[in-house]
């Protein structure tokens, strides 16, 4: 048996000795958040409370909650792992995830807050024929959210096997099911109010945990970043190239194209993520929405800067074999780093490991709740209330539909959680970004800024972008034909790139344009006047 394997078992043993501590920390978070949820549930009276938290959160509170929704298991576990294994190439995630916020800030957040009510579909369908566009918006909201959920569930499975030494499928499915049940409870009882508070608590915990680890890593290197990078490069076995671009994506023309594809998906995806967009409805007005994005950029930017310490710290202090043995995609690098910082055989190590793992669990739970809320809101408001009931549903009926949808989405994500195993969580989330940028962003931008845009353009863009993005993923090495694929034993991967963005995003934009110029109907100029004036001035916003 190789030394690294023994090490992992040691880590697992260390962890299992302190299992009561781990479970206590986790239970504390669950109890506290359930308390918040019940409290928020009592204050949730009408649809504006359920969907938008009563619109009374402050810009700072919402900025914190946005950060909580955004810094998912992908950011914490995935990026740390990607940097730990591939060095500089993993850092692209941090940069893309952050720069993307400028699209949201400059083009989307304020107009959306000014002209919508509860969902992304409100803005997409504003000047279009309601029923077809709302159906399309609801569909793409649910598909994007499920891709994102898949990543979080994969993260949950990974943590459990590390922490509790559970490697059996039954054990993992049990934990995934537990996460699923909790998220249904959070969302159906607490609505947006409860979910927002859960995000805030989680954001504080995650930032706190990350600052602690970053401080401990830097302490080891006397706050000399150059030394940290040098040790990481040396320990990685790759030498100086560990600090240069190309270790993961530099191999061939195809992988380089994949890097560009990933880069585009990251920067254009954020402003099309439904669970992020609906957060802007929780503040009183567009100015507060702008301020909450600024808070989010500050908080998220600070966090992603610290991923340098997490990722390169893990590379410097843990052997590469150990990281890979624990999880082939590096998803456990951050918790392992905590263990090593405290000392592998020491109680401190175990306590740190338990704390960081509990933080990661909190992260997953909160993001899962946010995603579930986005999809059930869209189902209830876009599809049930406006398509099925043609706008005649009461608040009570809408909320009931949202709660039922929550249970359905809970079941779907538990089922899918079993499928995502050894994929890097950051890579999985990047797929959700690609789908969002292909199906949602073109229609959002055309709707807000292009006078001629028509219903047919919106439908072609949403369905076209969605179909091509999801289709290309289906036939990519993420799903088959690769040792780390979901189905490694079969090969129907004729599309060589792991991220479809470079094809599907331009395609979404192209279809929106083509559908519009080929449509026979005239654009609704009166509705556009209304949308444009409302989106820029906030007239009539509530």
């Amino acid at each position: 048996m190789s030394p690294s394997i023994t090490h992992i078992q040691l880590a697992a043993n260390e962890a299992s000795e302190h299992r009561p501590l781990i479970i206590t920390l986790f239970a504390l978070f669950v109890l506290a958040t359930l308390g918040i949820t019940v409290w928020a549930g009592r204050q949730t009276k009408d649809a504006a409370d359920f969907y938008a938290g009563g619109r009374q959160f402050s810009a700072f509170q919402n900025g914190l909650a946005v950060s909580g929704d955004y810094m998912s298991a992908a950011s914490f576990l995935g990026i740390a792992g990607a940097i730990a294994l591939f060095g500089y190439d993993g850092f692209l995630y941090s940069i893309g995830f952050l720069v993307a916020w400028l699209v949201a800030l400059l083009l989307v957040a304020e107009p959306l807050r000014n002209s919508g009510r509860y969902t992304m579909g409100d803005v997409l369908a504003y000047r279009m024929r309601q029923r077809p566009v709302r159906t399309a918006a609801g569909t793409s909201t649910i598909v994007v959210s499920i891709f994102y959920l898949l990543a979080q569930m994969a993260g949950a499975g990974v943590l459990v096997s590390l922490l509790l030494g559970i490697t059996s499928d039954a054990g993992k499915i049990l934990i995934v099911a537990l996460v699923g049940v909790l998220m249904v409870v959070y969302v159906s009882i607490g609505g947006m109010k409860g979910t927002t508070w859960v995000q805030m608590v989680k954001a504080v915990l995650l930032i706190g945990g990350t600052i602690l680890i970053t401080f401990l890593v830097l302490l080891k290197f006397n706050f000399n970043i150059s030394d940290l990078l040098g040790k990481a490069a040396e320990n990685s076995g790759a030498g100086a190239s560990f600090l240069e671009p190309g270790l993961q994506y530099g191999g061939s023309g195809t992988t380089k194209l994949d890097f560009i594809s990933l880069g585009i998906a990251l920067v254009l995806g954020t402003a099309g993520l439904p669970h992020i967009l609906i957060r802007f409805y929780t503040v009183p007005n567009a100015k507060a929405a702008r301020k909450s994005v600024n808070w989010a950029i500050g908080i998220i930017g600070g966090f992603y800067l610290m991923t340098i310490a997490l990722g390169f710290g893990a590379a410097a202090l843990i052997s590469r074999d150990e990281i890979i043995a624990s999880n082939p995609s590096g998803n456990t690098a951050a918790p392992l780093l905590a263990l090593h910082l405290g000392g592998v055989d020491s109680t401190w190590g175990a306590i740190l490991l338990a704390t960081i793992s509990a933080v990661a669990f909190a992260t997953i739970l909160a993001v899962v709740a946010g995603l579930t809320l986005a999809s059930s809101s869209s189902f209830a408001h876009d599809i049930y209330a406006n398509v099925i009931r043609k706008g005649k549903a009461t608040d009570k009926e809408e909320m009931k539909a949202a709660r039922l949808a929550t249970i359905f989405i809970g079941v779907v994500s538990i089922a899918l959680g079993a499928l995502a195993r050894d994929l890097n969580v950051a890579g999985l989330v990047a797929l959700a970004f690609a789908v969002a940028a292909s199906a949602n962003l073109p229609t959002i931008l055309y709707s807000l800024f292009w006078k001629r845009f028509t219903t047919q353009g919106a439908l072609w863009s949403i369905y076209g972008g969605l179909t091509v993005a999801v289709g290309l993923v289906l036939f990519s090495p993420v799903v088959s034909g690769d040792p780390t694929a979901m189905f490694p034993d079969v090969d129907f991967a004729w599309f060589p790139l792991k991220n479809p963005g470079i094809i599907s995003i331009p395609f979404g934009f192209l279809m929106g344009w083509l559908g519009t110029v080929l449509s026979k109907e005239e654009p609704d100029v009166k509705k556009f006047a209304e949308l444009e004036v409302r989106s820029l001035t906030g007239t009539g916003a509530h």
Partner: protein
Amino acid sequence: MAAEAPPPSAEQHKLPTPEEFTEVQESAEFGELRRSYRSFAFPLTIGFIVWYLLYVLLSNYAGGFMGTKLFGNINVAFVFGVLQFLTTFLIAWWYSRHAATHLDPKAEAIKTRMEGGA
């Protein structure tokens, strides 16, 4: 419209008529607000996306340049990455300042008039 959203809640101000919206949209005052917003936000968006793509492309095709060590183990690629953070913070601050001084007062004036006059 075929299927409108459910009736707005009581807290909401009275919404102006479609004619009023069209009239405001065609007014010089609103045109000025739109120009002031678009002429700032659109070029800036193109700018930061080009700047970001430059970083992505250099990472891909100029490995040698990006690997140049500047001081200690800090190379051009690392500095480039950190610069992306800095420019993001800077652009967010810059836009917010522009919005607060040039957009908010204009938007507020139009909104107050439209809601008050309705």
